[in-house]
């Protein structure tokens, strides 16, 4: 189903849709408040954008530097060209270590690679340990947001899921009660897991270490208990220097949730005694994006989710309407790279209002990238013939001023005389919830002519 169809469905329940819009707007407002406390906010964004641009333009060097230093830290570094290779590498490692159960903290990359179903098929139990991720995992749903995976759910829905899956009391919806129940259940999983998988927020070329940011400490708990820790990262997660963190850690949480900093920003530079840390660096189409100058900027993304919270379309259609692991404006820019036919409606799921561009902490020109995709998808033949015909004809008329004037006059003469049923029918999509404009008797050009005669 295309985005418009899913959005229309989402908006059918107006009470729910309004709640969803307000919940995300609240996060946006928290972000506004947090960022307004930093007078240097705009300079921080500039600095972050410059660091990321520099890094992407020198990516090969920084990746090699990272690999070398990671080896010196005793880490094992693996390279995966795509999702399939990534999943193989992770599975092989787990099988080699005879792992039956893993705990996984939030990693959009493993979602992108669909790692969970792959591991489950191979007999490995996967427990997502981020609370939001755990909720959607129990419900067998994909996350609807990259930072707030269960933001589409009301607490009553979570209560029902927990009653069914974790045996909580029916009808109890207090957040403290539900969180405690999840905590108790997850504690057992942490203690019985044979390996941990985490994502990577920032990998440092200079030190060969990496940083994982969470609010629940679940990555730390997961990585501290079992001996095997696998960290999965997209190859754009590199930062050149440790000091660059002073820019990015300040931007990330403020943009994401309006916190000054995530509760836990954990730095990994050495495996625990007797343990192993493996880093899987994944391309999965990223090196293709680097070769397209108009889309290169999208690789700066630090996955804060601010563009989702601010997007008036995301707030009114929900993450699942994008039918892609990463939804919202950044998702709409990334998705068509992998499958333009499947995701062709996403770059059009925007008014190009530019709020995403202005909110982005690393200054990705998101609305311009959406525009670039529209043009590219059209050139690739992914636009409907009807739409193309109408726009072709309109553009043709706009090059013939006399014809344009005559057609305008014709419309202004005829349309006001038509009975309503001839204007408002199933083909007039504009008129479903809107009246058409009141046509004036004279055009501006006609008014001018009259004025000149006087």
């Amino acid at each position, binding site marked *: 189903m295309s*985005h418009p169809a899913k959005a229309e469905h989402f908006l059918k329940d107006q009470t729910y849709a309004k709640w969803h819009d307000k919940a995300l707007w609240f996060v946006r407002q928290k972000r506004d408040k947090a960022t307004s406390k930093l007078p240097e906010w705009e300079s921080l964004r500039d600095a972050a954008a410059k660091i990321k641009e520099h890094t992407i333009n020198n990516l090969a060097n920084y990746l090699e530097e990272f690999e070398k230093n990671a080896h010196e830290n005793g880490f094992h570094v693996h390279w995966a060209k795509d999702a399939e290779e990534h999943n193989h590498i992770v599975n092989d490692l787990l099988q080699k270590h005879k792992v039956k159960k893993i705990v996984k903290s939030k990693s959009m990359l493993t979602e992108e690679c669909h790692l969970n179903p792959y591991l489950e098929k191979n007999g490995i139990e996967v427990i997502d340990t981020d609370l939001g991720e755990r909720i959607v995992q129990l419900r067998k749903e994909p996350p609807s947001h990259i930072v707030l995976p269960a933001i589409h759910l009301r607490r009553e829905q979570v209560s029902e899921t927990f009653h069914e899956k974790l045996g909580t009391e029916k009808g109890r919806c207090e957040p403290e009660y539900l969180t405690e129940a999840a905590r108790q259940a997850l504690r057992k999983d942490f203690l019985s897991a044979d390996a941990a998988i985490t994502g990577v927020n920032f990998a440092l070329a200079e030190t060969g270490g990496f940083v994982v940011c969470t609010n629940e400490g679940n990555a730390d708990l997961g990585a501290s208990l079992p001996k095997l820790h696998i960290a999965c990262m997209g190859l754009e997660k590199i930062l050149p220097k440790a000091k660059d963190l002073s820019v990015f850690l300040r931007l990330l949480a403020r943009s994401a949730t309006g916190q000054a900093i995530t509760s836990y920003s954990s730095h990994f530079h050495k495996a625990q005694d007797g343990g192993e840390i493996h880093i899987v660096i994944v391309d999965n189409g990223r090196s293709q994006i680097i070769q397209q100058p108009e889309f290169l900027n999208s690789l700066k993304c630090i996955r804060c989710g601010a563009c989702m919270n601010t997007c008036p379309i995301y707030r009114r259609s929900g993450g699942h309407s994008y039918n892609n692991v990463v939804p919202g404006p950044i998702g709409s820019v990334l998705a068509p790279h992998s499958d333009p036919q499947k995701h062709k409606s996403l770059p059009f799921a925007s008014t190009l*209002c530019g709020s995403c561009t202005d909110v982005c902490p690393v200054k990705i020109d998101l609305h311009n990238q959406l525009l670039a995709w529209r043009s590219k998808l059209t050139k690739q033949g992914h*636009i409907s013939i009807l739409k193309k015909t109408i726009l072709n004809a309109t553009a043709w008329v*706009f*090059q013939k001023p006399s014809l344009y004037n005559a057609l305008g006059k014709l419309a202004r003469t005829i349309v006001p005389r038509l009975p309503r049923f001839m204007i408002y029918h199933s083909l007039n999509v504009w008129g479903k*919830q809107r009246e058409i404009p009141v046509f004036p008797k004279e055009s501006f050009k006609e008014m001018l002519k009259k004025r000149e005669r006087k």
Partner: protein
Amino acid sequence: MDQLYPKAAMAVLEFLEKRGIDVEYPREQTCCGQPMSNSGCSDQAKPLANRFEEIFSKYDYVVCPSGSCTSMVRCHYGEHLTTEKNENLKNKTFEFCEFLVDILKIDDIDASFPYRVGLHQSCHGLRELRLANSTERRDPPFSKVRQLLNQVRDIELVDLQRTDECCGFGGTFAVSEEAISCSMGKDRIADHREAGAQVMTGIDLSCLMHLDGIMRKSGEVIPTFHVAEILNGNASL
């Protein structure tokens, strides 16, 4: 504006003439090409951009009573025109309020409008032309449109909950994503209504056409005016 909102266009013309500006309205003009460009049909926008340049390049200034058309010329003609032509055109093309504030430096608007007015900030004027600070960025607050409206006697600008959320028009988006487009429009209208606006104004008639269309369907209409109609004293209830 020529076909649907001639009164607003006349207000612009009269305002500029009263200030002693020698204004010409080139009759052969039609459309800047934005609808095609924003729909992905940049090949169709190209001849329109070139037409626009041929018609308007001879003037000292090009003044356009629309933020989104101005931003098409200023921010998106680069792919259609030669660098020289593009630079020349974009440096002299201004949105109407921007021209009044930045070029004419007007601080003595002679108009009265004794109503509570809600200002709809159209997105391209806001985030591409920077006619005001957007709420996403931490820039010092300013607004060129408010600056002008505040000079109108007896006007009261109401405070909105979401001062710069998009109305949902978005060109062909209004039709291709009809459900969201109208939902966004309704939310904007509700915000203005709750703030006690008796009139809504803005710099883009496309946004106002969309909002007005929704209100007339529901029967509860807050009258809409292009900002030029208020500044020139033509707006009346």
